[in-house]
């Protein structure tokens, strides 16, 4: 149940991309649905860890309403900006949370919204930059109520 282990697996299997940031292969951390959803967005391109900061509380009681923010380190100029921010979950009934489309007029690459989380899981954010690269961050959220009743199903 410890998704920190899965994050380490993430990074262990990564090679090194040009530019120094570790390559991330999402295969090990996500179930099939989430992987397929991610591939649809990226077209199979590499997704690198970094530049993206996903903020979520580390503990929530029941996951009914969890506020999240995604901030991307980008100058947001006409030639260097964030095109889109995508947020995914691993264990909700379906993997997508939101696809947000920005552009240089945003000034700052940051979005905030609220999601439901069905269970303790890792949430992933992927940013698509104007230069065609993809960057990611992920955060584990523990739903404390899920310990209350154990494994029922």
């Amino acid at each position, binding site marked *: 149940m410890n998704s920190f282990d899965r994050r380490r697996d993430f990074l262990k299997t990564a090679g090194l991309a040009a530019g120094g940031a570790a390559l991330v292969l999402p295969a090990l951390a996500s179930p099939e649905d989430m992987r397929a959803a991610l591939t649809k967005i990226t077209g199979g391109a590499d997704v690198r860890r970094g530049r993206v900061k996903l903020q979520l*509380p580390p503990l929530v009681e029941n996951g009914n309403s969890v506020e999240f923010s995604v901030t991307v380190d980008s100058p947001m100029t006409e030639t260097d900006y964030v095109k889109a921010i995508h947020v995914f979950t691993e264990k909700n009934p379906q993997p997508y949370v939101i696809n947000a489309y920005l552009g240089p007029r945003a000034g700052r690459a940051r979005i905030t919204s609220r999601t439901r989380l*069905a269970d303790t899981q890792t949430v992933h954010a992927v940013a698509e930059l104007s230069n065609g690269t993809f960057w990611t961050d992920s955060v584990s959220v523990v739903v404390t109520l899920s310990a209350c009743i154990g494994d029922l199903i």
Partner: protein
Amino acid sequence: METINMNRRSFLVTSAAAGGGLVLGLQIPFGMTTAQAAETVPEINAWVVIKADDSVVIRVARSEMGQGTITGLAQLVVEELECDWSKVSTEYPTPGENLKRNRVWQSFSTGGSRGIRTSHDYVRRGGAAARMMLLQAAADQWKVPVNQLSVSRGVITHGASGRKVTYGKVAAAAAKLTPPDAKAIKLKDPKKWKVAGKPMKRFGTVDKVTGRQVYGADLKLPGMVNATIMECPVFGGKLKAFDAAKVSGMKGVKQVLRVGDTAVAVVADTWWHAKKALDGLPVDWDYGDNVKVSSASIADVLKAGLDAPQAFVGNKTGDVQSALKGAAKTVDAVYSYPYQNHAPMEPMNATARYTPDKCEVWVPTQDGESSFAAVLAASGLPADKCEVYKIDLGGGFGRRGAFQDYVKQAVLIAKQMPGTPVKLLWTREEDMRQGRYHPVMQCKLTGSLDSANNLTGLHMRLSGQSILASVRPAVVEKAGGKDPLTFQGVAQSGEHSIGYSFPNLLIDHAMRNPHVPPGFWRGVNINQNAIFIECFMDELAHAAGQDPLEFRRKFMADHPRNLGVLNAVAKGIGWTKPAPKGRYRGLAQMKAFDSFVAAACEISVDSTGNKVKIHRIVAATDPGYAVNPAQIERQIAGSFVYGLSALFMQECTVKDGRIEQDNFHTYNSMRIAQMPRVESIIMPTGGKVWGGIGEPTICVAAPAVLNAYFKATGKRIRTVPLKNHGIELV
């Protein structure tokens, strides 16, 4: 009562342990941390701190609420650690520390009878790892192979040379070593236990008996103010307005505050002044539609569900409809079980202090991490600016784990008075009115017998409230709308699977969710399911002209552990021998929380049928493993106090959308003179799975007594509590 000096903090600094780091010990007068400020106190690993004087502090993540889990967990650690038990004390890590250290202590959740059974493996490994590191440190110091060393009660001996050293002397060096791979550690065989498995005295008993124990309700902090609160008594209603001016001038009153959409609080110098002002405060509620709901209207809805065409199936074998159609004789009965409140001796409370830089909460909680999550949400601050300090509970029973409403309230009040610690303590009335109630349930059971009086089929239709639909809807969603927890004790498989094999069986649930908020009452759904199935088994036995024990045994060939505890209580009560004149017996069995439990009682009833005396009650528990047999005995007895009080005296009724019972005069509990002596048989049979202790036994006392009552009077009671039939426990 003791005061915390919030500036007097003790820091436990590790000597750069591999898995460690800075350990924060807040010195609080709850009999826990005994840190010394100037000393370097090595943390061997997250679970074990050893001081130079050889005293040992065991970190425990679960909460102590009178169930003795803290002592049991310490026993498991110490068994592997091999230190001196007389030098052991325990300490609660905080949820903030747990987060900072990647949740090294894992779950803090104390409920579902899980405290020992879900953590025994890793806490034992924690103790074993610490022992291995301490031995290695001694071996390194003496430059001998570690396998030449032995240890007993914290004293390490090198047999060949006779050298000895105590844990305290090598702790600093041990803390620097690389911990062994936890998964590779070989744990002791429970058959060889010397500390675990023994009736060690519980920590904290003396303090509780002498009044030294500080509960959340007793807490005093410098500059603290006191608050009490009232939430809309009709669930789902809202706060419209209140006339603060009418009470602001009353003695000691500091603030009259709106708390969220549904509650109003008074803050004063003393709790009594706050309560008096709240009592006198004119409040305008918007009750909403639920004001029309009553126990009678709820019962009507549930009754209709007993025959409704749709129900969620929880357990199914064969074709019960055919069996019923082809029956020579059918037996049917309708049972019901009411709303009940946890009613712990200590009312809900939490103390909060908020500034934009830090929000701290002191609270008796069954899950420190749930409390922490509530603090995060209510304060709006990030995790590194929040903290929760756990206090031993004056009763939890399931009210203080999944529900952190009082924490949220305390933070919302404290946010309106930044910098001031606010102790929010509910009145007893508020505690009774704002419960999370044992769900209301009715049950229609139909059994079919063939011409030889063999049971051919059983249909158990439950109609009533789902806890999870309200508390954990994601689980219900995932199960296609069904609440699997409703079938505890009669489930198809798992930790609550039914203890019988019937040729044709259908157990289904027509879900009907009234507006009253449900919660996890000790035992959860086994309380009503044990009455439903175990009383109906007696009804079937009676219709078939068979002895209730013999009748049951026919369906238990595949349930040897159920049979084991049932046979044990039957033997204990002397089932096959005639009872003393005027005494009558009943029995019941169930599997719950992976433990197997049974009870047999012997009662007498006066000639009016209204006065019941329980002369004897024999209980058997097979939890797989017994960590502290003395504590298990107490838990069994305590569960009977709770369960028999509920059976005879406890029901929460609904009128005008709200709960009527608001104090112990209308929601009574038994007194010591009424409580029978409990004869416990603890019979752990080992195996792969560890069973729980806190809850399982609670469910078998009531059906055993109800079954005995029928034997005594010929009257079958199918609705509880018994006071509604004019029956009292003497």
